[in-house]
């Protein structure tokens, strides 16, 4: 009987365009579209920042030391145009404010004399940090000028650079690329589960309970000789399936983006991602995803059963997404790791377990605890759903 109800509800849900849009179309397309747009915008900004002829206002004249040094820097470090202000600092700052110049460089009048007498002298670069690439250009120009002057002083003093820099220190990352991927991207993956799993559950849940109440079909169904718990389970299975489908669709979209949209510049990283996605990994992920989605369905069903209209249900359920994302966000903080305590915190345990799964250093005891905690929570949510569905004041408007 449960399967009969499940089959009919699934057919009904599949024919609902809004649910299909939320369950399949948006999750599959969102990452390829979003990533494509972001990458294109980023590339175009980076290109235009690199190609932009920076207008550099200098406080001195074109025959100054700094002007000479800047002019000597090859165009490969970015094209530039020097504009001298001959000591007119007010105009220099005013022009930068009016954006007629992009960068300003301010230095002491006695700069050349200070350098000649091996003294330290100040140079101030002024830039608007909201403009991408300006500060990097200023730093790269300054590094070249400074290095040249430093080596000149070493030569003058007859000092070998090694005498001043005794250590050649290398800080080596001993974490494997898979571990790094787990740390960096592992937290992102549960977000997909939470956001899309939630979204995928939401519409069928409202449609199959509040919607049926609004349309009067629930009463018809309740007059049949089917036990209420079977009706509940049949409907719940469709909601869970929809949530799972939504998460999986988003994952497929993300995987497609990584494979074909060139968003990961390092091919070895793409190979690692592909190697992580083994059947074993997918099964373990499913083990976590299943109770999470049942939990979502279990939270949404009592609300859908209780509310009288689609709008009312939507206005209560939609903000819950934020409540579920908050513990997931904690999982992204540095130092928060999967242990006995965190494995008992719902949602957070999913984030941390997924991170460990991707990094390949999962502790199976903690995985089991996380799974059990989610399973218990899902069972409680199902029980509450059953209680609410049994109340006659809830099932009839």
């Amino acid at each position, binding site marked *: *009987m449960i399967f*009969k*109800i499940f089959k*009919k509800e699934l*057919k*009904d849900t599949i*024919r*609902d365009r809004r649910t299909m849009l939320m369950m399949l179309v948006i999750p599959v397309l969102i990452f390829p579209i979003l990533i494509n747009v972001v990458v294109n915008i980023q590339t175009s900004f980076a290109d235009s920042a690199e190609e932009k002829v920076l207008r550099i206002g200098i406080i001195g004249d074109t025959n100054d030391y700094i002007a000479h040094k800047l002019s000597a820097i090859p165009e490969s470090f970015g094209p530039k145009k020097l504009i001298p202000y001959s000591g007119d600092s007010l105009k220099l700052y005013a022009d930068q404010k009016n954006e007629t110049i992009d960068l300003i460089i301010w230095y002491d009048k006695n700069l050349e004399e200070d350098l000649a007498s091996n003294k330290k002298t100040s140079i101030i670069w002024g830039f608007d940090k909201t403009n991408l690439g300006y500060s990097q250009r200023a730093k790269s120009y300054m590094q070249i000028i400074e290095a040249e002057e430093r080596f000149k002083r070493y030569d003058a003093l007859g000092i070998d650079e090694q005498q001043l820099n005794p250590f050649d220190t290398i800080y080596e990352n001993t974490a494997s690329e898979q571990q790094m991927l787990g740390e960096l991207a592992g937290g992102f993956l549960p977000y997909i589960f939470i956001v899309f799993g939630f979204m995928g559950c939401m519409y069928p849940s409202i449609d199959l309970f509040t919607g049926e109440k609004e*349309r*009067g*079909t629930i*009463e*018809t*169904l*309740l*007059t*049949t*000789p*089917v*036990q209420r718990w079977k009706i509940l389970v049949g409907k719940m299975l469709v909601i869970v399936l929809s949530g799972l489908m939504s998460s999986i669709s988003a994952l497929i979209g993300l995987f497609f983006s990584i494979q074909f949209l060139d968003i990961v510049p390092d091919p070895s990283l793409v190979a690692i991602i592909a190697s992580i996605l083994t059947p074993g990994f997918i099964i373990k992920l499913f083990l976590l995803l299943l109770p999470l989605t049942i939990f979502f369905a279990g939270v949404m069903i009592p609300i859908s059963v209780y509310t009288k209209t689609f709008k009312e249900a939507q206005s209560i359920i939609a903000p819950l997404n934020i409540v579920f994302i908050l513990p997931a966000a904690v999982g992204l903080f540095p130092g928060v790791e999967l242990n006995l305590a965190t494995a008992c915190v719902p949602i957070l345990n999913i984030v941390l377990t997924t991170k460990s799964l991707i990094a390949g250093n999962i502790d199976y005891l903690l995985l089991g605890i996380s799974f059990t905690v989610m399973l218990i929570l899902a069972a409680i949510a199902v029980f509450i759903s059953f209680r609410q569905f049994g109340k*006659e*004041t809830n*099932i*009839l408007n």
Partner: protein
Amino acid sequence: MIKIENLCKEFPLSKEQKKERNTSDKFASAVSNVSFDCNPGEVFSLLGPNGAGKTTILRMLSTVIQPSSGSIEICGIDAIKYPREARSKLGFLTGSTGLYARLNAHEIIDYFASLYNVPHAILKERKSYLFDLLGMNEFAHKRIGKLSTGMKQKVSICRTMIHDPEVVIFDEPTSGLDVITADSIIQLIRDCRDQNKTVLFSSHIMGEVDLLCDRLAIIHQGQLKHHGTMDDFRAQMTGKSLTGEFINIVQS
């Protein structure tokens, strides 16, 4: 047959409802001590103005809601103790058409037949009979959302009758329908009586009651105001019309 005795139903009052009604009572009585029976081969009508408690009685009969007290027997089965068994004997046409807009008539009928465990061969036969009787073949493959109110009501009736129930309950079956469709439904109710089924129907329309009913009960404010045969009702008429008599009883 249907037999109800001293049926009562109380609904809990919310804070807002208490304020609206200016009462401190925790419950409101929707049905109070209603008793009647309805026999096979008989059309029994439940009459009453809006909010009289007719739908509440029908919902208790169909076991969708539980009575606060009293007893309900359907075909000899205690419907309070054994609601599933009682429901299997029932065909209940709710006040709204209660159909799934994204499915077509075939799919809906097959679905409900499967919920009543109707064997495939019998389903085929029943479907063919009811589709012909109700003139549903033309639109049986169209999705419900695209059908007119009359077509939807026909599908609803077919859904109610598909498992050939012994007891049929119709809650305002001709409400909002055109004359032709309403007439075909009245004919179907007569057929049910001829097939020795127990038919209980609620209505506002006295003309329909006059045409169809063998016995009737008038409910007002949750209480039984009149219970008897249609002939007795006609005989005791003091006004010129059945509607007038109905109003007299309700207002008395």
